[in-house]
């Protein structure tokens, strides 16, 4: 990463850290929701972009994480232990689902993840101990004790810090993983799995591991949700929820690591703007169509195109080589379409 972008990220993080002091509680609640969506979509992005595995059952891990945290929080465990446990449970589940689904590839793989996630959904839906159709209400996080400093996180504006901290750390870990040797193996598998396996790499093992990691962070994001909302219902696992990270990633830009972040903010803004009209689905559908048909690189792609346009017109005045810059822009776009 460039020095300037690190500086930019630090400023941004500081801004988000201090945000609850300046905005009202409803807004910090909204920010919390956006952070959760960011982690949910990033965990999906990890398998979709890095490993090229398009799962359509990601909500299963999100929902299982949410249910695990709901049960454990009510038993009185500390929130960070709960988050870790929810992640581990989601990790184990996603290893199983990954092991079964990865027997096939492409659209069959997607359909298998979808149907196995439906099984998880229906099992939770029909378990009376988990509240069945009504879910689990009244989830309140226990106060936490940080080096003698008591923090009552049952209030959303305080719980915000738990979410903020967890999401930032998780995204940092995902960033490191994406650029680690594991990430390189996964990219190589995505590009050509036969050649990768002939290099002596156990393709399936890495794919299952990647699926498990995505499940872990999906579970953590779900676990953050239930104490925030205070109630959890089986709808958290429904397959329309599985489409959510795909939509967010696509809105943000599938070819960038930062796509989920931009996507989640844009998505939540759109949602808040259109929810009163009672037709937010229509708007969402129209925007999705526009992205798919016109802007396949999402908001980030549009931003990049805009910046490169500015640069081109700027460098014209300076008399620099325009052809080269134009070529980069065009090539970047067509490569983007191909690479996913």
């Amino acid at each position, binding site marked *: 990463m460039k020095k300037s972008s690190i500086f930019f990220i630090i400023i941004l993080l500081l801004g988000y850290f201090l945000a609850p002091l300046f905005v009202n509680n409803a807004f910090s609640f909204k920010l919390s929701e956006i952070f959760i969506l960011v982690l949910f979509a990033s965990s999906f992005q990890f398998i979709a972009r890095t490993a090229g595995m398009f799962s359509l059952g990601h909500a299963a891990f999100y929902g299982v994480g949410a249910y695990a945290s709901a049960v454990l929080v009510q038993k009185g465990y500390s929130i960070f232990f709960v988050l870790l446990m929810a992640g581990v449970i989601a990790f184990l589940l996603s290893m199983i689902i990954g092991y079964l689904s990865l027997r096939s590839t492409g659209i069959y793989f997607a*359909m298998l993840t979808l*149907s196995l996630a439906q*099984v998880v959904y229906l099992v939770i839906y029909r378990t009376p101990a988990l509240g069945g159709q009504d879910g689990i209400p009244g989830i309140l996080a226990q106060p936490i004790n940080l080096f003698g400093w008591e923090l009552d996180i049952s209030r959303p504006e305080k719980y915000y810090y738990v979410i903020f901290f967890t999401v930032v750390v998780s995204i940092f870990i995902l960033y490191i993983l994406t650029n680690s040797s594991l990430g390189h193996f996964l990219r190589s598998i995505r590009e050509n799995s036969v050649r990768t396996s002939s290099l002596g790499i156990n393709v399936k093992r890495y794919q299952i591991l990647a699926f498990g990691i995505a499940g872990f962070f999906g579970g953590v994001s779900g676990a953050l949700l239930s104490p925030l909302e205070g109630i959890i219902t089986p709808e958290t696992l429904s397959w329309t929820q599985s489409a959510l990270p795909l939509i967010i990633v696509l809105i943000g830009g599938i070819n960038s690591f930062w796509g989920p972040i931009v996507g989640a903010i844009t998505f939540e803004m759109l949602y808040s703007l259109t929810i009163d009209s009672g037709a937010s689905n229509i*708007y969402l559908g129209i925007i999705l*169509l526009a992205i798919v048909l016109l802007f396949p690189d999402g908001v980030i792609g549009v931003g990049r195109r805009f910046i490169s346009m500015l640069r081109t017109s700027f460098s014209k005045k300076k008399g620099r080589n325009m052809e080269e810059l134009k070529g980069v822009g065009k090539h970047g776009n067509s490569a983007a379409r191909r690479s996913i």
Partner: protein
Amino acid sequence: MDVLLLPLVNGLTQAAVLFMIAAGLTLIYGVLGVINFAHGSFVMLGSYLTMFFFVGKFDTVLGLFSFIFISSVVITLLGWAVEVLVMRRMYKANEFYMVLATYAILLIIEGCVEKYWGASPLSLPLPDSLNTTISIFGISVPFYSILICIIGIAVMGILWFLMNHTNLGRIIRAAAADKTMTNSLGVNVPALFTVVFVIGIFLAAFAGGLLAPTVALLPNMGVNLVIQAFVVVVVGGLGNIKGALLSAVLVGVLDSFLGFYIPVLTGITSYIVMAVILTIRPQGLLGKVG
């Protein structure tokens, strides 16, 4: 005897409807290479339009079926517009962009229906002359279920004839095997894509119309139906109509029987069937390898 016959009839009724939806899906996938998530919303629209035209006006059997047909035609026109305006631009794109495009169409249709008819369940009463039972081996079975089964078999026959004994069917099969070669032999492949898409949508809307008197109409009913139909299509082998028939009967009857004896399993059975079959045969029952 009735513990065997009732679940069997229910299962076959379900299978007939599932087959009509799945046949369209698998036909579209086989020729166009598109997984059409919006398929279920056309089914849902078929149910709603039939109800809209029919309720309280023409309470006869002829009225019901003519309005099922009319709403199917209206929806087919809509499907044609969708193909020309959206799908046609997507054929060269990555298949997940296509999934997203069809999902967007699903959201739009569902949103419009919810805006117009509301989110609460609606129902369409059967005309009295159809709301009877007939007795088979001394057990009374709803007449409408039998009728749906018969219509399902008729649709199957028509599809079989269309695919195997008409020129259009030969061209469709050729395009499914090799688009470039078919195009170079002088067939207008983009127009063929439109025809196939429209046939699929017509089947979906027709199934929706048939289904309307038997279920509660909800804007999200299509979402649940399309997942079931996907299971059928994938179990049978993508792009294979015979496979869709086989797995529709398998999934429908198995789900009905297991649901009858072990009520907790209702709805889960089909996914378990799918997981089992795909782990043994990843390409589906009648799918080709690779």
